[in-house]
């Protein structure tokens, strides 16, 4: 893709400007329709039909209607709020999330930037949104917002550790941090995915239980990083109204929402890339038609959307954790187990 665009335009600058456009479009469309999906799935799980007025029974136009409504809304500045920080916070949150998309490998021909430290970059850059949350909570001059942002920081910082540890298993196995390399290594069908031990001899079978557990840990802890239920203490409508979002209205609120839904797909993308073969077709090259660069888009987005669905599904199944339970889960369960997995994988690699 890079080379192709470079050939057409003959300029590095124009190529660099065009590369993020589909990414940005994808994030916006995904965020809009993820809201609809969330509402539809939650409705179905509660035996309701969900939004079914705008655009027929499916409510397919609902996101557009919502967006128009929200765009018309006044941007409210609370009295005695810190004006500059208050306006800045949603953009910081959204930027942090959007930057994370840069390294998500959608296909063998399309990735924002194929950094050789891609995974590391992702964990680093998504932490920026924590700063945005803290800014938003602090500058709103509202105690509930502040509580929400404090919780957010505590939660995301502690859950970085199991996330990194679970990802470390794959980093050790693959010996790289580049997202494209992860995908390329998992070529050759479903048995070569890292959740099933990656490519290798028969001895990889002993790794499977550890890697399945690592995949679960990665999913759970990224769920917490995306502030989704059961880890949505940041918003916790019943306890602290809406947390950081409390004072925001209209477009600012939309930025926070977009960031949340974009983050959902980003973390799903990470789980998919690390454990489920990224853009690789589960049939490998046995059916070449299913492994063309354009089909790879479908595989990657399909796998990502499946995890987004699981996230929504979990949200409408589980109640919210308490703060102490949240910390207990992280420090007493996820981190020790992730360490055991890292130890096992390390031992396997040494021997």
């Amino acid at each position, binding site marked *: 893709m890079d080379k192709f665009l470079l050939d057409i335009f003959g300029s590095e600058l124009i190529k660099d400007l065009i590369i993020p456009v589909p990414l940005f479009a994808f994030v916006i469309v995904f965020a809009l329709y993820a809201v609809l999906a969330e509402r539809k799935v939650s409705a179905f799980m*509660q035996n309701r039909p969900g939004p079914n007025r705008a655009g027929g029974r499916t409510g397919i136009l609902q996101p557009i209607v919502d967006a128009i409504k929200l765009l018309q809304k006044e941007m409210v500045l609370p009295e005695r709020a810190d004006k500059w920080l208050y306006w800045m916070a949603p953009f910081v949150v959204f930027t942090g999330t959007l930057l994370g998309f840069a390294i998500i490998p959608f296909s063998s021909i399309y990735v924002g930037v194929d950094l050789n430290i891609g995974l590391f970059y992702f964990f680093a850059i998504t932490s920026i949104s924590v700063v945005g949350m803290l800014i938003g909570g602090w500058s709103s001059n509202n105690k509930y917002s502040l509580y929400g942002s404090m919780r957010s920081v505590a939660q995301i910082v502690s859950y970085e550790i199991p996330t990194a540890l679970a990802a470390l298993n794959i980093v050790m196995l693959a010996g790289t941090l580049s997202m494209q390399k992860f995908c390329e290594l998992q070529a050759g069908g479903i048995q070569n995915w890292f959740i099933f031990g990656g490519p290798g001899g028969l001895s990889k079978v002993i790794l499977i239980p550890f890697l399945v557990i690592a995949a679960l840990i990665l999913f759970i802890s990224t769920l917490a990083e995306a502030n989704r239920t059961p880890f949505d203490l940041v918003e916790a409508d019943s306890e602290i109204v809406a947390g950081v979002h409390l004072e925001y209205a209209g477009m600012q609120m939309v930025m926070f929402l977009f960031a949340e839904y974009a983050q959902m797909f980003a973390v799903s993308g990470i789980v998919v890339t690390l454990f489920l073969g990224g853009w690789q077709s589960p049939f490998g090259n046995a059916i070449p038609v299913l492994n063309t660069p354009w089909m790879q888009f479908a595989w990657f987005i399909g796998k990502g959307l499946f995890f987004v669905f699981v996230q929504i*599904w979990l949200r409408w199944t589980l109640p919210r954790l308490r703060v102490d339970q949240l910390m207990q889960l992280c420090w007493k369960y996820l981190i020790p187990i992730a360490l055991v997995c890292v130890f096992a994988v390390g031992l396997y690699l040494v021997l």
Partner: protein
Amino acid sequence: MKVYFKNIYLAISSILIGMSITFRHMFQKKVTIQYPEQKLQLPERERNRLFVNMDDCIGCDQCAKACPVSCIDIETIKAVPGDIVGKTGTTSQGKKKALFVPKFTIDFAKCCYCQLCVFPCPTECIYMTDVFEFSTFTRSDLLYEFTDMTPEMAVEKKKKIEEYAIELAKKKETAAAAAKKPVEKKPEETQKPATDIEKET
């Protein structure tokens, strides 16, 4: 250590149970009733908006007296002997109507839908309908007028009874020597033409 692994097992198993329940619900039949298009069958003795059948109303004011919130407002004019009240002068059960009802309003902003006005009605002309969607933008729109008489008609009937009263007073003056009670005389006079009408019909 045993507790630790038991906790993990409990957490995972309970999450899976919960998820299977929610997943099953996704494919079940929807229970929502799409209200303006679909409506529930109302119960048999539902109490909604009142309706007054003015053909049967005799203007007895009993419903207004029974109303605990005074939302019914009735004005009546006595009929002159020989004047036909309404279309036939009688109710559908053949009861004679002796009063014109130029004003019969029910303020549904006040009405508490207690149905207490329905039972005292001697002709069963006030009753509950199944209409419950009558929200309006202004409160004055909830003041419902039931009478079929125009204000001009009311003025005319009022004039008539006033003239009749003057006539009656004149008669009284002439019969002052006889010193009879006018109060007793009056009901006899109003009853007579009514019986005539009944015979005619």
